[in-house]
């Protein structure tokens, strides 16, 4: 494992009874990058993150976090990491401030309280209020602050924007960018494509406990996947297009309009279009969401195991 690699898994597997949650996850995350971990509910995102922090024990595979085996020395990993769980649970009997002081004490008092107050102000969180009186979104803000307050080298955030309103989502994404600019590495899971596209430099897509794709966000979006809207002068057999390799009909209207997804080189597609009476053609780069959905459509099995 190179010094530049902050997080590495090889063949990571984990089962819950008969359910195979992870089936050999291979990941590499490098120092200073924001890495998005994409997948639908139950694909294995949370299980992967919890293995990385030694909260659960994998059945097989190798894991290194900051060059350390988390099973051999979990405290060393946890001391340099900030973690936000996907299902955040706090002590309802404490105020937000008391809860954060508890977490700071668990880190040996390693938290800059001025920074905590700045974070609370930016996230519009009243630290004096009891946890039990906070909304889900405000509890999430407490979770975000506890992950950031000791300014860790590595942030592992499981759905950091869960329950937050759009304004606060933008603020949290801003905090992640700032953490990166301060030298931290950010590894976060999400199923909200827009937020991943907004901040992540690289993404991994996990499907049914296996990594389906790891790529730079921009290249994944740019990669030959286009959405083409075609209108014809007269009804045509759109099957001519649909039969081309990499072409999929997404919708069809009255025989005159058709929306297609074209993957890969467009040369053949354009040649066939040229032989047809086209009145209008529009091609658009898909969003990351469409790229992501493409992994789960086109014959992929939607059924996840956890």
């Amino acid at each position: 494992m190179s010094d530049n690699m902050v997080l590495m898994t090889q063949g990571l597997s984990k089962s819950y009874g008969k359910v195979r949650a992870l089936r050999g996850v291979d990941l590499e995350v490098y120092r200073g990058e924001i890495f998005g971990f994409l997948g639908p509910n139950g694909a294995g995102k949370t299980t992967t993150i919890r293995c990385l922090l030694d909260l659960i024990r994998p059945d097989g595979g190798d894991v290194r976090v900051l060059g350390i085996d988390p099973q051999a020395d979990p405290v060393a990993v946890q001391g340099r990491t900030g973690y936000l769980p996907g299902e955040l649970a706090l002590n309802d009997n404490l105020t937000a401030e008391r809860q954060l002081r508890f977490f700071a004490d668990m880190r040996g008092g390693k938290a800059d309280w001025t920074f905590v107050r700045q974070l609370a102000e930016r996230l519009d969180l009243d630290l004096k209020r009891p946890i039990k009186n906070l909304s889900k979104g405000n509890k999430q803000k407490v979770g975000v602050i506890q992950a950031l307050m000791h300014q860790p080298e590595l942030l592992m955030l499981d759905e950091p924007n869960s329950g937050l309103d759009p304004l606060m989502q933008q603020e949290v994404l801003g905090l992640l960018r700032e953490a990166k600019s301060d030298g931290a590495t950010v590894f976060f899971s999400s199923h909200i494509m827009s937020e991943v596209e907004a901040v992540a430099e690289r993404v991994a897509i996990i499907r049914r406990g296996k990594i389906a794709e790891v790529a730079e966000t921009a290249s994944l979006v740019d990669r030959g996947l286009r959405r083409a809207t075609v209108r014809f002068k007269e009804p045509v057999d759109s099957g001519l297009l649909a039969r081309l390799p990499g072409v999929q009909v997404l919708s069809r209207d009255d025989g005159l309009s058709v929306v297609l997804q074209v993957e890969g080189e467009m040369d053949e597609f354009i040649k066939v279009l040229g032989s047809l009476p086209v009145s209008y053609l529009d091609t658009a780069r898909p969003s990351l969401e469409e790229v992501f959905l493409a992994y789960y459509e086109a014959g992929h099995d939607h059924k996840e195991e956890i």
Partner: protein
Amino acid sequence: MLTTLRYALAQFRGQILGWGLGVAALGLILVPFYDVFMEQQADFMQMLESYPPEFLAFFGGDAASMATPSGYLGMYGFSMLPVIVGIFAVIAGSGLLASDEESGRLDLIVAHPVSRAALFWGRLAGFMVSAVAILILGWLGFSVLLGGSSLDVSWGEMALPFLPVLAQALCYGALALLFSMFLPARRLAATAAGLVMVASYFLSSMATLNENLATVARFLPYHYFQGSDAMNGLNFAWFLGLVAASTVLALLAWWRFQRRDIRVGGEGGWRLPSLTRGLRRRAEAQ
């Protein structure tokens, strides 16, 4: 570990006061009542002798021994204390880690740079200190009115029966903790440990009347409860034996906690066999 201990004690504050003052209140009633008991001794003895021996067995003696300070305190106080303090121990022991785990809080706590060992032993130490604090409050309640009572017992002698109570509390607490490490729900662990405690109390009490039960009772903690007899000399072998058994139970629980997954959302749990589930699966298969 000290941070964990500090927070564990903060969590136990209410229970220390509640259980401690409850045990103290028992002493504050029992000690002055001894004089009334002695004044009415003849009537009380007649009443006690009318009880069936099975009933008296639960209070650790026969009617004749009840007139002594040790017998009186044993019957009305110390015979029940292992169960009273045992309820605290079972609730506290089963929830020491499992209540935070069931609520989902343990996930984030364990993700902090505190080793599982420090978390486990810190919380267990918090439980032990709480049990000691409850019994100290209880001892004060039993002792503070001794000066005005005809009970010929010193404060030091009064402290001795609390040591076997402590050993019982540690034993049931450690057992509940161990069960919570293996069973899928805290409530189930508390129920199982509570059953052992109640069975231990009944079987050991009845074993004084039925020798056949003595064989089973030998394996149960209450069999080794000395009660108010400790005023006449503490049975160190029993006391240390129970402490050693508690240590073994705690070590087993720690061994399990070191190796197991921290659960959230029912991960790693197991379900009891369900007849309806089996029938439903069969129907679905058809």
